[in-house]
């Protein structure tokens, strides 16, 4: 036999142990095709680490191998290697996209920070042709590049003057220590959030925190474009982590607020986030950066968890089958011990979304338990509704789905953005014959318009313009 020592070469800040991502390892011919033998392809979890010794040793028959993986950010990495009998060969998959800073490495691998920002160079005014709108047939520039136009949208000026800054990345973000009751419990949150229409961040925060004083969370580190903020409920070993002391109150909900120019972003964070492997609490990291345009979101949140952090990244990038595989490797910790119910909810999204058979499975019980045992996590009820709606094997099952969606609504804001979308879809599906579901859907809709669907955790734009890029 021979050995491949495989890793993804990437530095991750404050790494306790390397996170792992699935890679395919294919035995190939000289011409690049997979060998037509049994076990020509296998999938292995491989570490993300800048340290050569961290490489995972995988025993293989001698031959030519092609190793490929896709990061949560969507970057495809591949390498091929020939290994002879008894030989050990390193296979190092190197991302092309490097994080702008080591302290942004978790955000970057999750796809939240662009490694290279596209900076179009406007041609001098004399070189411009056409009106810069969709309408002109002569649309385009006489410049060094053939320019692309939009294919179905609104007229817009190309290279407009830079918009005013949306966020001050150095300014502390704020923890709502005593949020308004509606944010903490029950179904009032849907209706109440959509009544907050002010353009003043001060006014919005005052209402969200019921007039109480917020706690400033200072950036752990920042530059001129990005600020990174880290929080937990207990002391961790992370750098610059602010411990949110004092329980947030009824409902186990932790809200942070990021100020924008004329609105705020409200983040519902799943705290405490427990790492399955060693039971410690992981930091939740919020990054604040200027959006590419004023309609975009400023903030993104991740769990700095070596076991499940990558699952969250795949969930938000839409790579549900990959997220499912990671969840399946941790089923014991996730669903038998429920060591991290928030992580269990993340895995359940991938399981429900990728289910293929309309028959009862063992893992359905996990979703049911999430719904029953953790009423403060509305996601469990929504997932149960989605599962039953997708199966739809009988009229009773349809009724069960509708009831689960209603229960999810009554439990308040889900912790995951996918939950808001599923809840709205489910309630609208039930609306034709159910006035109560119709009314609920109406309220959810106004929050759903303002959710950042590119993030795993629920982030809502509150106040300001109705135009949201999500």
């Amino acid at each position: 036999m021979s050995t491949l020592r495989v890793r993804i070469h990437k530095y991750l800040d404050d790494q306790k142990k390397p996170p792992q991502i699935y890679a395919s390892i294919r035995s190939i011919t000289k011409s690049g095709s997979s060998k037509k033998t049994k076990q020509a392809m296998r999938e292995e979890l491989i570490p993300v680490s800048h340290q050569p010794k961290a490489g995972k040793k995988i025993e293989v028959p001698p031959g030519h191998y092609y190793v490929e993986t896709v990061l949560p950010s969507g970057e495809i990495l591949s390498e091929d290697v020939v290994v002879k009998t008894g030989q050990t060969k390193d296979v190092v998959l190197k991302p092309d996209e490097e994080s702008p800073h080591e302290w942004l490495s978790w955000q970057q691998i999750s796809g939240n920070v662009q490694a290279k920002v596209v900076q179009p160079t406007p041609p001098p005014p004399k070189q411009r042709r056409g009106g810069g709108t969709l309408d002109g047939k002569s649309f385009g520039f006489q410049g060094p590049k053939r320019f692309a136009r939009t294919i179905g949208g609104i007229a817009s000026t190309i290279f407009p003057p830079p918009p005013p800054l949306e966020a001050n990345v150095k300014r502390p973000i704020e923890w709502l220590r005593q949020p308004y009751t509606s944010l903490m419990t029950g179904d009032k949150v849907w209706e109440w959030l959509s009544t907050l229409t002010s353009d003043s961040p001060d006014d919005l925060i005052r209402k969200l925190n019921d007039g109480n004083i917020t706690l400033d969370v200072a950036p752990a580190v920042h530059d001129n474009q990005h600020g990174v903020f880290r929080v937990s409920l207990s002391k961790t070993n992370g750098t610059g982590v602010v411990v949110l002391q004092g329980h947030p109150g009824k409902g186990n909900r932790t809200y942070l607020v990021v100020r924008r120019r004329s609105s705020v972003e409200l983040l519902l964070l799943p705290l405490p986030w427990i790492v399955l492997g060693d039971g410690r609490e992981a930091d939740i990291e919020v990054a604040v950066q200027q959006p590419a345009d004023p309609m975009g979101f400023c903030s993104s949140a991740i769990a700095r968890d070596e076991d499940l952090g990558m699952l969250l990244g795949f969930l938000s990038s839409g790579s549900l089958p990959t997220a499912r595989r990671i969840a399946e490797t941790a089923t014991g910790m996730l669903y038998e011990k429920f060591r991290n119910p928030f992580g269990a909810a993340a895995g359940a999204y991938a399981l429900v979304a990728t289910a293929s058979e309309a028959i009862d499975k063992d893992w359905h019980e996990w979703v049911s338990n999430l719904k029953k045992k953790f009423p403060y996590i509305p996601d469990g009820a929504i997932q149960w509704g989605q599962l039953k709606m997708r199966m739809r094997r009988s009229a009773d099952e349809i009724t069960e789905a509708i009831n689960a969606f209603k229960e999810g609504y009554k439990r308040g804001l889900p912790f995951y953005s996918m939950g808001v979308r599923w809840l709205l879809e489910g309630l609208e599906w039930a609306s034709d014959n159910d006035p109560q579901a119709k009314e609920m859907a109406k309220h959810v809709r106004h929050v759903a318009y303002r959710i950042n669907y590119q993030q795993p955790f629920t982030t809502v734009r509150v106040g300001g313009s109705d135009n949201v890029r999500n």
Partner: protein
Amino acid sequence: MRTDLECDRLSVLMSSQIFKKRVQGAATHAIVIGVGHYQHLPGGKSRKKFSNPGGMGQLNSPPQSAKAIARWLIEEYNHPEKPLASVSLLVSEPKKSDFTFKNGNRKTTVAITPANYTEVETAIRDWQALGNQNADHLLLFFFCGHGMARAPYLSLLLEDFGAVDNAPLNGAFDFGRFRKNMAECQAREQCYFVDACRVSTEIMITNDGYAGNPIIQSQGTVNATGRLAHAPVFYSTLAGAEAYAETSKPSLFTQALLEALSGAGAGDEDGPWRVRTTVMHDVIGFLLKDESQRLQLPQLQINPADDLVPISLNVTGSPKVPVVVTCQPDSENEKATFRCEGPGYKESRQPDKEPWRLRLPIETYSFHAELSKNKVVKVERVVRPAFRRISLEVK
């Protein structure tokens, strides 16, 4: 299950169906819609213009995108278990044109049905009816044209959008509800491709959750197939964002989609090279990002997918793989002459700031960067889907 008589009646009704082939058992049925001409938007042929166009006008890319997809399906698509049985094509363009494609050895020319609401509604209902004939059928849906969004809602605009000032969405349909209700269709595999801007508009804001007629309505049908519907949707861009095209070409998303379908989205772990939705998503993401950088777009075009699950699509003989060759550091590219050699293949490129972008058949190649007569960096690498980056380290 439909009777033969009903099937025959269906085929007579389908004016938009440009391709039909009798297939025993499971089959693929596709509907392709491209709207470039909007009668009631500025530049449109109708004298009656919509009073609140919000900056929208005529488009020349969608007809080309739709025709390119339809042509590829008829001429190239090869699904051994679910062969192509029908393609419906609806295209709106300023001048009515025919559509020519190769059907085996002969050329076929057909008239194209316009993509107005009435025709699209009929075509979609017929397409759904075909899907209801067999749970093993695979349904493909492609739309290119104007889109308006207020996430999670998306309205796809048809040729007669804006015909009635106080009911402009009569000429549009609600994509989200349409797709949701299609879950009640018997066909368990459905793939949706939406190539449209998803910008927010005043119409979407004021109509608060109404994005047009869904065309297909929920019947509360019980699922007796024993399987769950798999219906991934591939969007060309994020909600609230624009999608791009180069003038007089299919859109960037359509080009990336065609490249993925032609083999860049394929794997050979189960035998022949077979395109799968999951690999397609990865490679389309790469291609759009790469094109965004090459064309210096004002923003990266990011292609999200909803409910992405693995669905096997066509089998392809010899995939072409996107390859990017670059020096490391990339500042050396402008000094390097690149060369690529493989069995029956030899190509080179003069120094340039940009990386060298290639499309290569699966094979082992040697890649060279010649920085001077005495300084040549060389590596030998296998090229296979989905994508290969070749970094030539200059020390």
